[in-house]
């Protein structure tokens, strides 16, 4: 017996699977790095890095 909740979950899982597979096909990912992150501040035209250690 398939409960309503299970049916909704199956739909949800199908959507995620379809989304992830098409993302793979178009080689799309929200995690691909395009821009240099702002975590290292720009100072005088160059990124200044260094330990965050306190």
């Amino acid at each position, binding site marked *: *017996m*398939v*409960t309503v*909740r*299970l049916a909704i*979950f*199956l739909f*949800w*899982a199908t959507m*995620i*699977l379809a*989304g*992830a*597979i098409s*993302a*793979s*096909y*178009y*080689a*799309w*990912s*929200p*995690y*691909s*790095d*395009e821009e*240099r992150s702002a975590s*290292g501040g720009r100072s005088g035209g*160059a*990124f*200044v*890095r*260094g*330990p*965050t*250690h306190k």
Partner: protein
Amino acid sequence: MTAVRAITCPQCGGALEVRAAGFSVNLACLHCGSLLDVSRPEVALIEAHDTAAARFRLKPGMRGALFDVEWEVVGALRRSEGSYRWAEFLLFNPYAGYRWLILSEGEWQFGTMLLDLPQGDDDTVTWRGKRYARHEEPGTVRITAVLGEFYWRIRKGDEVASAVFERGGIVLSREGGGGEVNWTELVEIDVDTVEQAFGLSAPKPRRRAAAQPFAPFAATERRENDIPMMFAIALGALFVLLLAMVLIAGPVDSASGSVNAPYAVTREGMKIGTISVRRPHQFVKVKASAEQLTNTWVDLDYSLVDRATGQSIDGYGIVEQYSGTDSDGSWTEGSRSDTTVFGQVPRGTYDLYVDAAAHGWPSDPTAAELGWYSLPTTITVAVRAETGAIPWGNWWTAAFLLFLFPSLALWRQMRKEREW
């Protein structure tokens, strides 16, 4: 003659009443949950607890008339079989003995212990001339919480073998194995009947009540628990997704080389190699790693230049390593390697160029330092580019979303159970 025996909990000092004096053996304190032996004139502590007593839909001391007999709730149990959970209430009337009320997922059953025992095997039994067929596989039932008094030795964690037989809305439940076997006849009893009898305020309306006015043996049927199924589906979907992602990622082409990054200045346009994207779109992963790196970071700017069009796709990376000593001792920070992923790289042949600059921390070394000390004048960074990369971030996101649903369902179910 008063029918109640007043006692004091030796653990928490709370006032308690033994409602079935002379029959009750164990009592789980309504105040602190401690398990007491009330079978003798002197009350003895069996197992001390100091947690608040479990909450149940019916509380010991409540009275209600069912089937024209007034019953007093004397004990309450929470039990589980696998992931399935329900509550059982022991009812007592000195003139009628004991009965059970079972609450499972909002459905109630009324149980009577049988004096005439069904005969048969594990598949079918005969009782009062009628055959009952086994419903579901036999299992092991565990007690997860107790409250109130019981006529037998009881303890949280007790386990008993259980099997359920049914015929036309009547359920025979068999518990125990070996010598001591108890049979209970269970009949469906209307929610409203129980709630009116015990003066319960009606809980939130249940949507199921309308859709399913009569569920023959809802309780013992162990109503379809879909949560394990959902977890299994989520796991299976993740595995399928992994296979699909590996297949789609497509042919792998790689190139590697290295750059020597000077301090303070940027060395530009060093070519690492050539890679080909052979599918309409692929991920390209560029991994940089430096073996020798101390209190230094290296900025890496990548350009993937399409040979056919001259168009460039840019990205960046950084390798860094710092160390020092403070009041907590020595520390190190940073990563000697870094992976950059380029998404949606169209089909084509690409040259990878790198601009690299090394910087010292807290400041760039002076020319003199570079000359006099053993500091290398440049930092060597190995760079490897690869097409057909797998976007692990996508996979983990899918994993989170897939497990979110059954996890929420499980959390809701557990919260609902606590309300019983």
